[in-house]
């Protein structure tokens, strides 16, 4: 059993859902990444997604796009992100989130090995669909990695079957509709999608769509197995890292988010 599957099994046994936090590798300085990961884990993150910055991130919104640009402007190399993750003192499973060209340029086989050597557990390539990802999947699985694929509200049932068939670890449901602070319910688009995905897989389902507080996390965890918090965490770190008490602030915020999963 992979460490990701293991984590979901443990959470289920204690009647909890997963809090998945996203950070961009290299924003702020890649040298700070181990400390950031350690604080996210200390705050209660169950899985951490580490974004590998790409120059042309077509699947990302403005916050993560700008964060990627800052990382690249600083000259962040992919190998430095791998080194930083490897040196972090954490036990939480790590999933890299990035784009196909990074993996392709390194070579799928070499990239999968580099990911595994960094101690990470899985990879999600935002612009790789399951039918185009056969070769990647083989190399990733050979290196012991989970391959996470996206499910979208626009996906047909056939495509959901295909994505879920190719996915290991968990399935990542995305939405185009962001939640606003006043909303009290998960958008219909998301509940429908999760229900359709449930019909075709027994894998855990995580949902990400602009979740920014514990209430959102709680809402999402009412229908899914985990909530992904991306832009909110990236923004928080960008605004406070390097200032006094940022690590405490980050841990406290993650703990608040985590409270929504119980």
């Amino acid at each position, binding site marked *: 059993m992979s460490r990701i599957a293991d984590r979901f099994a443990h959470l289920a046994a204690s009647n909890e859902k997963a809090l998945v936090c996203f950070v961009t590798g290299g924003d702020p300085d890649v040298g700070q990444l181990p400390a950031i990961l350690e604080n996210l884990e200390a705050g209660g993150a169950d899985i951490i997604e580490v974004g590998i910055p*790409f*120059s*042309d*991130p*077509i*699947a*990302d*919104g403005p916050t993560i*796009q*700008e964060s990627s*640009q800052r990382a*690249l402007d600083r000259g962040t*190399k*992919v190998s430095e992100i791998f080194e930083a993750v490897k040196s972090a003192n954490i036990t939480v499973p790590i999933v890299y989130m990035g*784009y*196909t*060209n*990074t*993996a*392709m*340029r*390194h070579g799928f086989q070499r990239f999968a090995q580099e990911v595994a050597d960094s101690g990470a557990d899985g990879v999600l390539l*935002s*612009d*790789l*669909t399951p039918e*185009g990802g056969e070769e990647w999947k083989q190399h990733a699985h050979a290196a012991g990695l989970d391959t996470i*694929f*996206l*499910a*979208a*509200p*626009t*996906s*047909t049932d056939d*495509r959901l079957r295909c*994505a879920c068939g190719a996915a290991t670890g968990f399935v990542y449901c*995305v939405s*185009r509709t962001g939640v606003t602070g006043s909303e009290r319910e998960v958008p219909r688009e998301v509940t429908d999608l999760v229900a359709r995905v449930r019909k075709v897989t027994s894998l855990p389902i995580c949902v990400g769509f602009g979740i920014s507080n514990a209430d959102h996390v709680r809402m999402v965890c009412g229908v899914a197995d985990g909530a992904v918090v991306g832009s909110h965490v990236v923004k928080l770190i960008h605004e406070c890292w390097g200032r006094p008490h940022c690590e405490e602030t980050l841990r406290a915020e993650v703990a608040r988010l985590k409270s929504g999963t119980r």
Partner: protein
Amino acid sequence: MALKHNVAMPTDLRESAGRFGPYGGRYVPETLIPALDELSEALERYWADSDFREELRSYHRHVIGRPTPLTHARRISSELGFDVFVKREDLCHTGSHKLNNALGQALLARRMGKQRIIAETGAGQHGVATATVCAMFGLECVVYMGEEDVRRQEINVFRMRLLGATVVPVSSGTKTLKDATNEAMRDWVTNVESTHYIVGSCVGPHPYPSMVRRFQEVIGIECREQIVKQAGRLPDAAFACVGGGSNAIGFFSGFLADESVQLIGVEAGGRGLDSGEHAAPLTSGAPGVLHGSFSYLMQDDDGQVLPTHSISAGLDYPGVGPEHSFLKDSGRAVYVAATDGEALDAFVWLSRMEGLIPAFESAHAFAALRTYPVPKGGVAVVNLSGRGDKDMAVAAQTLHLGD
């Protein structure tokens, strides 16, 4: 370089399942795949529909002004020692070949019931063409354009706004065509159900490269008929500039099956290939994924897409259409680069020798024509993909035309 690599290319063998050899494919977020499936299906259905094709032909004739002429360029012919014929896409309505594609896609979008159109633009020619068809059909139009290009192609921004389009300046990344394309794709991910994205070149995920080629093939098909009529024979060589490569792929398509016709694509050499400041992925890049397809790409060891430079905004792009990558590897076409300086020289040369003011993009094709070894007494065709009016501000400054 001698004329070689003359491999005939049956058109039905060069594309399969959205791939040209290994190139092409669909590398996009899952959200877009159903829209691409829908688009592929609509394209095949209407391409086979005689009403659609007849409507397209009618617009070609009565709106774009097709067939465009093939002009015998007599003075440069006598200077170069072989006959040069110029395919006059500069005479298309809106001033470039871009309308061929924008119109075709708009007709398709209307049949698909899409009321909102988005586009990216570099030089602004595709943006103007898209804004034009949206005005014709009463469609909402949003054009993404890099801030740098908004500055250097100001006239086209004014034209788009006059035509009723919303021009959104893009300030991310390199602030040029690549980043405008990123923003357009993000818009499409968000609004995919209401919106058709009119991609301006033969790039992007399947079916775009194939669709854009089909809408541009008319250039090459007309040109082949015209050259046979006017010169009494097929040309020895066909030249076209290549950014994303839509004018070139349309032009080349007319001659792909004629193995005696050498196809020469001309990329932007910028300040020289050795300087690193250029936009010549076929000449000096490596295959990778950008904007949804696998093709030659300017990138570093981590796969980060490199900044590009060209005097011509329309060629200032780090990627290229996947079919060009296939034509390069198969040897059916050759790709060379012309620098900013060579293109500017050709811009002046063509203006003074023939009274034709080319777009900076098209000037690259003429720059290569001047140095490429076409046989003496032979025949060459060059695609004049657009007119140079939009480049007058930069030309005036660089060439001191105001003095």
